[in-house]
């Protein structure tokens, strides 16, 4: 008999979850914006190759960018309209890339989607659809889904683990998806299971979403699918593949390896819904649920918005600011990126737009060797040692003795550090320097 509630063992922290701001808000649809800015770099890997030029007209769902290498993804237009320009934009993660500025045609007819029974399709056909319709991981990492779901020769995907953890504070887009789009998402899970030939399917959900656990169990029971819904104790960063797999399967991904190396594939619940829409309606990934929240937002909401919507427009849709925020974060506050301005567009991986005040500020002091970072690190690293070595320019020591490259920048160490040392910032810098030296 498996335990009722599981979690991973080493490290982890307990930030306040702040989900009450938006977890009762039903998903709403954003009215089609006048203009969207769709970048060609929506995913991890090489940017897509542009298929359209300035002045071309596009139809909602039409492909406008195509994968330029093995790890890359297709891009589709979320609106019907005209391409006004192709220009450089700076995304929240400081990546500069080309983007289409598309002016929408307010008179355009609504596009009709197909009605397909995915069961009649072979797994190769399904995988092709997933690739062709630009599905990427929607939890934030935006790894191209078709690459993840292509099981390399000699490997077996024993487990399909669906990530409904949403351990980042504030975010509720996956929570609402599980409550309101469960039927589709569960079909999506079965599609992925077919593609990768998974033997066991587990959905991991943290305990602050027991309503979602119950609802998914009901849906699964009604459909008679072999899926286990596993409640997990609340602990950050459980939504990370490594911690999620440890918690749900007990297996540990070796350093530098992938989930598939221990016979598992992990997929975010939002991605499952996108897979479902792709494989049953032929609808590409070009809109998503974004959680627009934070203390500074007048009326936090979960919004389905076209990819390329400027965050300012989302915030206006929520009634604007209650008070001026210090920061607007793309994704969750633990690992997300700070937006530069309100004109930055959302991407396929933007799960949240969070407007917050900076809290618990304190002056930075020297490291007092309290060891809190060491206890917090889910990877078992020694952040204080990495920090001291990087600050003194000893990148090789940080790298070789303290395994800097194993750091996944989850932010647990910096979250607890009483000295308020920008640890993650230092590690990002250290990695860059170490790579340069090689």
């Amino acid at each position, binding site marked *: 008999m498996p335990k009722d509630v599981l979690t991973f063992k080493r490290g982890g*922290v307990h930030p306040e979850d702040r989900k009450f701001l938006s977890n009762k808000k039903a998903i709403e649809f954003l009215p089609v914006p006048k203009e969207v800015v769709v970048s060609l770099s929506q995913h991890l890997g090489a940017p897509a190759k542009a298929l359209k030029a300035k002045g071309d007209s596009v139809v909602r769902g039409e492909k406008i960018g195509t994968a330029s290498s093995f790890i890359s993804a297709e891009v589709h237009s979320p609106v019907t309209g005209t391409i006004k320009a192709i220009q450089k934009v700076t995304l929240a993660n400081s990546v500069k890339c080309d983007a289409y500025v598309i002016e929408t045609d307010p008179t355009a007819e609504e596009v009709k989607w197909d009605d397909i029974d995915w069961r009649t399709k072979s797994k190769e056909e399904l995988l092709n659809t997933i690739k062709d319709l630009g599905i990427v991981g929607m939890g934030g990492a935006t790894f191209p889904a078709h690459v993840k779901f292509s099981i390399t020769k000699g490997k077996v995907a024993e487990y399909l683990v669906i990530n409904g953890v949403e351990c980042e504070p504030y975010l509720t887009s996956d929570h609402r998806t599980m409550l309101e789009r469960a039927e589709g998402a569960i079909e999506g899970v079965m599609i992925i299971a077919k593609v990768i030939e998974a033997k066991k399917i587990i959905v991991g959900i943290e305990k602050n979403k027991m309503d979602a656990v119950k609802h998914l169990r009901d849906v699964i029971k009604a459909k008679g699918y072999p899926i286990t819904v596993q409640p997990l104790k609340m602990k950050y960063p459980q939504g990370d593949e490594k911690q999620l797999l440890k918690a749900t399967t007990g297996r540990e991904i070796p350093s530098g*390896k992938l989930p598939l190396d221990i016979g598992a594939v992990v997929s975010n619940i939002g991605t499952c819904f996108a897979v479902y829409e792709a494989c049953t309606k032929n609808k590409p990934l070009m809109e998503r649920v974004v959680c627009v929240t934070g203390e500074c937002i007048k009326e936090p909401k979960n919004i389905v918005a076209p990819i390329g919507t400027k965050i300012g427009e989302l915030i206006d849709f929520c009634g604007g600011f209650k008070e001026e925020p210090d920061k607007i974060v793309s994704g969750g506050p633990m*690992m997300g990126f700070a937006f530069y301005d309100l004109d930055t567009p959302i991407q396929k991986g933007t799960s949240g737009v969070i407007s917050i005040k900076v809290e618990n500020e304190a002056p930075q002091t020297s490291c007092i060797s309290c060891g809190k970072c060491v206890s917090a690190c889910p990877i078992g690293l020694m952040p204080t040692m990495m920090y001291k070595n990087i600050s003194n320019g000893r990148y090789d020591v940080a790298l070789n003795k303290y*395994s800097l490259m194993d750091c996944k920048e989850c932010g647990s160490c910096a*979250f607890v550090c009483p000295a308020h040392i920008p640890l993650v910032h230092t590690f990002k810098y250290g990695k860059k320097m170490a790579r340069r030296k090689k």
Partner: protein
Amino acid sequence: MRLKISSSPHFHSKNSTSSIMWNVSLALAPAAIWGVYVFGLRALLILVVSIAASVVTEYLLGLIDGERGLKQSTLSDGSAFLTGLLVGMNMSPLVPVLIPIIASAFAIGIVKWIFGGLGQNWMNPALGGRVFVFFSFTSLMSNYQMPKTLPALTGASVDAIGSATPLSYVKTSITNGLLNQSPSAIMTNGGYPTTDFAQNLAQTLHISPYAVDAFFGNIGGCIGEVSAFLLLVGGIYLCVKKIISWHIPVTFIGFFALLTWMFSGYRSGFGFASGEVLGQVFSGGLFLGAIFMATDMVTSPITKKGQVIFGLGCGFWTFLFRYFGSLPEAVSLAIILMNILTPTIDRYVVPKKFGYIKPVKEAN
């Protein structure tokens, strides 16, 4: 609107260096107040002078740092206040006022500042200050006072006991050849007073009344070390607030108690496992050292495993120093010795990394 741009995380816990330092000072407060209560206003004067000297030294050295364009004033982080408080609590209420001033200045200036300031020192500053003045002014430092909660001494015992701590009294007696008597018997025969409360409680519990008095703080000693009970209360507060963890205090006190029980009987001519534990554990600054000075984050190991080794080491050295040395500084010296070993412990005792279960086979 100006948006702040900085690296993740954009969320921080309530932890801060200054909240740690002020909370430790707060946790020390009950024991310090008790010290002032039983030893009188002179004890208060010593505490105030120690803190002032420490804070002023930190401030002056901060000015030098400021001149050289180094960091801003570090007074607000509370570490200088804490060091001063600890120095004061480690003083006998009878020391001349100049001694805590020297000790505080040494702690902040030599032990901490010379090595680069907060976080860089390898020895606990307060301990460094105390040990420095102890070796410089040993006799002045070894003059103690009876707490006012104990019945007044009469007759001959005034000279013999009045200015000694129970530990040093027992120690001297044994060294002078008083064998076949347990430490509490030595104290009773010597006329060391106890409170009525302690006698009653001791009878019900079948323990020595001196252990009861030592636990609650009716005993001679340094201002801050006498009430093991209130120090324990402070320690529990710090554990609950997750500022310190139990690893160092419990292993330190536990291992010392174990060794004392097993071997200390030999000194008085008794056999194995006959040592008197409680009186030893509750006196001589063991609780102050184990809960508040051995746990100094800067100078103790980072990992929990390392902290257990550190605690065991402290317990071991304290036992050795108390039984084979003649220094009342056993606890301080034991901690300093382990401070020296801390960087080595941190080098070798590292956490188990995620994803290194079996040697990773390279894909061939």
